[in-house]
Structure formats: structure tokens, C-alpha cells
């Protein structure tokens, strides 16, 4: 038993955090929201250089081997900086292709995913995954229908999300890539990785919202005192921290279960997804409230985090679906 991140994992988080801080992600998110994917793809390449996508790709496909714990660590940092793009979908595609009976699709696509050349999107056409995120910005889009994987012909109709950095597509047509009972198992693996990466992203997002709000309430003065000295404000922020702190070990433990291929890992992932999604959403509500009216504006960068929290709460496993899974396995 040593339920702690090791030095290397912590250093990975620190270096990603440093790189993303320096990159100034709010400008990247705003560009992405207007359909200018250039800065986002440039950042994508740097994330690939840092090894983020290779963590979802086996060594024989030019990755570093599938490492769910490191993926969770990495996606926490991506969430902390609200990095845009089909990040979760790309690593989920890696899991999907890696688990197909036929290795040809993996050989065709995974090296590009690991190197950052390929941004992929995915929808499973299940209640958890009706849309392909940012399909219009992805290089390739995969659609799973029951026991069939298709490569979509086009992104299809695209709709805006309440988070302007996300666009939701219904991909059209395409050619069959794989078919058979093995597809269902592969899709389950993809959904598992997607739930883990989304939960980790939510955790990072929530931590960033809390950090920004703590900074704000220390400097914002009313009635002659920083509002952060008022108990009503303090206690709300304390509750936000509690929710985040207790979500984190659920994420790490579910990553361990996933890495070990434990049969009940779907239940553990569901628990992590609910806890992290609710913690991040609660953090967004608290951040909005404690910032007051300025928090309600689009121009404050805080809005980039607030709106994503709502989206991640339901992406890749709604709270209700996950709670049901916790009890039914």
C-alpha cells in the first residue's frame, strides 16, 4: 500500500502545469470557440511532446504503454487549464482501436495519436455519448453502433454547446472499420478511459475554479474587509475543497482498477465520475457566486471554466447513469 503519486508522476503534473500556464490557455480557448483551431492544435502538439497522448497508446504502436494513472494525472492538468479540443475522445479512440480483434486499425491510427499528429473524435451512440465532440476540428471521427465501428465520412451537423469551446456533432455515413462481438468490449474500454479522463479533467477544472476564487475573495473588499474573511464565504469555499479532496482518491483508485483490468472497474469509474463531476460543478457554482456579478460575465476568463464544468458533469456518464452503475456494477 502506497496510495500516493510518486515523484515522477508529481513532476509530470508540475511540468504540464508550468507549460500550460506559460501557454496562456484562455486565449487558446477563446480562439477555439470562434472556430480558429490553429492555437489549439499548436498546443495539442506540445501536449503530445510532453507525452500526454502516448500514455493511451501501447508501445508497439509508438506509445509508452497504456498508463491510466498517468493519464488521470495529465488530464487533471488539462482540466486545470481548460484546454480545448477532443482530448478525452482522442484517448478513448486509442482505447477503442487498441481493443479491437483486428490490429490493423490500431496500426493505422495509434502512432499518429501518440505523436499528436492525429486529433480524433468519437461517439458511441449510447445515452452517455450521443455526439462526437469537436468532430469538425478532428482529423478523424469514429462512430460505434452496437457491434460496428465506422470511420465517419463527415462531421455532419454541428451544434454549439453551452460551453462555447465545445461543439457537438452527429457524424454521417462512413466505412465500416470493424464488426463483431469484440466491438462491444472495445467500446466499453473506450467508455471507461473516457470516464476516467473526464473525471480527472473535472477535478483539475474544479481546483482551478477554487484557486481563482480564493485569490479573488482575498483581495475583494466590502464593508471594509476582504470578503474572504466572512464566514458565509469561507464555509462555502471549505465545502468546495472537501468535495474536491474526496473526489481525487476515487479517481486515482479507479485508474488503478482500470490499469489492473479489474472486472468491477466500471463501478469504480462511475463513482469517480459522479464525485468529480459534482465537485467541479459545485466549485463552478461557488466561483460564480463568490465573484458576484463580474463572475456572470463572458469577458472574465473565469467563464471559460464555469461553462465547462456544466458540460463535463454530463459528458461520458451523467450523474444518474453513474449512480445507477455504482449499485449495479
Amino acid at each position, binding site marked *: *500500500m*502506497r*496510495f*500516493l*503519486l*510518486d515523484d515522477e*508522476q508529481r513532476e509530470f503534473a508540475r511540468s504540464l502545469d508550468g507549460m500550460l500556464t506559460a501557454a496562456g490557455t484562455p486565449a487558446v480557448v477563446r480562439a477555439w470557440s470562434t472556430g480558429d483551431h490553429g492555437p489549439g492544435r499548436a498546443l495539442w502538439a506540445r501536449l503530445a511532446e510532453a507525452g500526454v497522448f502516448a500514455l493511451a497508446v501501447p508501445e508497439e504502436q509508438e506509445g509508452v504503454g497504456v498508463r491510466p*494513472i498517468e493519464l488521470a494525472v495529465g488530464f487533471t492538468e488539462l482540466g486545470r487549464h481548460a484546454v480545448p479540443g477532443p482530448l478525452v475522445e482522442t484517448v478513448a479512440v486509442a482505447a477503442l482501436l487498441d481493443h479491437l480483434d483486428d490490429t490493423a486499425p490500431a496500426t493505422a491510427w495509434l502512432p499518429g495519436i501518440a505523436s499528436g499528429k492525429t486529433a480524433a473524435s468519437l461517439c458511441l451512440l449510447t445515452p452517455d455519448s450521443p455526439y462526437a465532440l469537436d468532430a469538425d476540428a478532428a482529423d478523424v471521427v469514429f462512430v460505434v453502433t452496437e457491434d460496428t465501428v465506422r470511420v465517419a465520412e463527415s462531421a455532419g451537423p454541428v451544434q454549439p454547446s453551452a460551453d462555447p469551446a465545445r461543439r457537438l456533432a452527429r457524424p454521417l455515413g462512413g466505412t465500416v472499420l470493424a464488426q463483431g462481438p469484440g466491438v462491444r468490449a472495445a467500446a466499453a474500454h473506450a467508455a471507461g478511459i473516457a470516464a476516467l479522463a473526464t473525471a480527472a479533467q473535472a477535478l483539475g477544472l474544479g481546483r482551478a475554479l*477554487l484557486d481563482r476564487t*480564493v485569490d479573488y*475573495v*482575498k483581495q475583494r473588499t466590502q464593508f471594509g*474587509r*476582504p470578503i*474572504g*474573511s*466572512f*464566514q458565509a*464565504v*469561507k*464555509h462555502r*469555499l*471549505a*465545502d468546495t*475543497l*472537501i468535495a474536491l*479532496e*474526496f*473526489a481525487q*482518491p*476515487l479517481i*486515482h*483508485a479507479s*485508474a*488503478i482498477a482500470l490499469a489492473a483490468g479489474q472486472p468491477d472497474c466500471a463501478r*469504480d469509474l462511475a*463513482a469517480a465520475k*459522479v*464525485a468529480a463531476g459534482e465537485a467541479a460543478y459545485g466549485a463552478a457554482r461557488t466561483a460564480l457566486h463568490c465573484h458576484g456579478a463580474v463572475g456572470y460575465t463572458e469577458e472574465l476568463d473565469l467563464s471559460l471554466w464555469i461553462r465547462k464544468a456544466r458540460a463535463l458533469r454530463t459528458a461520458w456518464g451523467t*450523474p*444518474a447513469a453513474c*449512480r*445507477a452503475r*455504482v*449499485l449495479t456494477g
Partner: protein
Amino acid sequence: MDLSFSPSEDAFRAEARAWLTAHVPDTPLPSLETAEGFAAHREWEHTLHADRWSVVSWPEEYGGRGASILEWLIFEEEYYAAGAPGRVSQNGINLLAPTLFEHGTAEQRARVLPPMASGDVVWAQAWSEPEAGSDLASLRSTARRTDGGWLLAGQKTWSSRAAFADRAFGLFRSDPHTDKPHQGLTYVMFPLDADGVTVRPIGRLDGKPAFAELFLDDVSVPDEDVIGEVGQGWRVAMSTAGNERGLTLRSPGRFTAATDRLTALWRTTADPSDTALRDRVADAVIGARAYRLFTYAAASRLAAGGSIGAESSLNKVFWSDLDIALHETALDILGPYGELADHAAESPAHGSWAEGYTFSLAGPIYAGTNEIQRDIIAERLLGLPKGRR
């Protein structure tokens, strides 16, 4: 990251489980909060102690097994999963003993710990006073110097099971002329049957006489019963609040066992189409799992040489809220049967949900109210400015 147990930890778990299977009473003991139940639970402490299961984490010389924190967590998981009785000695074991290990003398440890381990001496805490609750440092009870000892005077209250216990520990003002309220306090142990002590039982919310107030009228206590330095009582009392005590006050095993029972109750009794109820059961399961994992992480940090400190306040708020939520959910599943008093003939599960619910209601209040804990979290973990309480 590693969540697995070593072969020796697995063996420890197996040994504990086998012992508990052989010894845990088939029918629950009478309520710990009554005189009859208190005596039965003291007897159970003797049984635990006879095979060295009463204080597993203590050194062997005091009746323990020198168990690691992780082994202690394993023992607690097995203990509550086995449905074993509540621990009548918990205040002594969880609150006084850590203080003695850190601040006591060898003589005090040798004298106090073995009878605590055996249940021969059961301890009550005497912190709160009528005018000193959350603001504990404003306490007024005094310790006055006499030849070779002290005279204790004043009133303590909300002392759990003091009506049945043997001895108590608390803070007393030994120097009335200090600049700040938390200075000039001294940590003292005293017998509850001494001359000058009057114990008045107070009925709890469920009517059980398990609360008490203590009136102290120049109770004579020798110097040997002062823990730590005279005048340093506040520091002595608080120093153990932030280390393992933050972990050991309420072990995760309690909540994993309770949520297992809740899940079983839900599966056998509840309407499966009631998704609102299902969500609450799921949240209890998720909460208990989160608390268990959070504690493993904290234990790992301690084992790696780290410390806990103000983070124990995160624990306190989390488990006390979880405890209430899971008991409320159980009572709602039981529907009209949830109203039955725990000692009613038809009370489900021998009244354990009803009594557990009443007990859970105290969680956000004792051991530092959750408002105090949230202040600590905000100020020490988030770095927010101090303000008026």
C-alpha cells in the same frame, strides 16, 4: 501507486476476521448509552483485551500489538463488518491515550494505559462547560495549587457516558492572570467518584441517560495526574488533534460496513423504480468509498514521513455529513418502521438504524463543530483571512 495489502497485512486481516467471527455476540448487546448496556460493553472490552484486540495500535507493553496505521484500519474494517459492539472505551483510547503517548510520563503511561486497554477503567472527557462550547478556551473551571497537588472547581457538561464512567480528563484554568484565554490552562485527570464530584445524568435526544454534567467542588488531585506542563494544557490538548487522531476518531470501516448494510436493505426492501432513493444509496456508497480511499492516502502520507495537521478537519466534516445522510436514507427506506424507537420490539435490525441515526446527529457538533472545522479549512488550508467568528 499501490492499493494492495502485503501478505502480512492479509494475514493480520484473516486473524482478526477469524477472532471476530468466533467472539462477536450473535445478538447485539443492550445500548451502550444505558447503565445495563455500559456494563455489557465493559465486559466486551475485557473479551477484546484478553486476546489483545482492544488497542491493536498500542505497543505490546500496554496490551496492544504494535500494529501499523494500516493494520489498525484493517482491524476496524473487519470489526465493523462483523457487526461488533460499539467501543465503550473510545474516549480514552482515541483522545486521552494519544495525549499520554505524546506528553505523558512513563509512570503515567504505565499506570493509566493498561487498565484503559482492559476496560477496567473507562474514561469520560470533560471539555465543555456551560459557557465554553466552540469557544473552548474561554473555560472557567479552575485548578488551584495545594501542597503536592491541585484542587479542581467548577462545572463541566455534555460529558458522554460520565454517568457510568470511572475517570475523566479535562482542561482547567490554573492561572487566572494571563493575556490570552488559551494560556494558563492545565490538562488534568481526575476520578469521577472522588469527594467533591457530583455527576448529574442528562437525557440525550433519545432519552438515554448518556450525557452528564459534572460539578466539581474542590476535588483534590495529585501532581501525578497533570499531563504535560502546568499552564500548557491548551497546547497539550490540541497537539494530538492534528495527527493520527484526525484519522482515528472515526475509522472508514464504520461507514463501509454501514453502507454495505444500507445497500442490502435497499436491495431487499426498497422500490427499485424509486430512483431518488437509489441515488441517495449510491451517494452513501460513493462517500464511504471516498472516505476509505482518502484515509489510505493519508495513512500512506504518514507512513512516508508526512503529517496530517489541519487536513483532519476535512475528514471530520466529511464523515459526519456522510453518517447523517446514510442513516436518513436507511430510515426513509424503512418508511413507517423507521419511526420505531430503537428499543421497540419491532424496530428493524434490532434498532441499529434508529440508534445510529440519533448518534449521527451529534457528529457535526462534537469534537469541534463543523463550523469550527470549516473555519480551520478556510484559514489554514485555503489561506483565507481570519475574521470574526
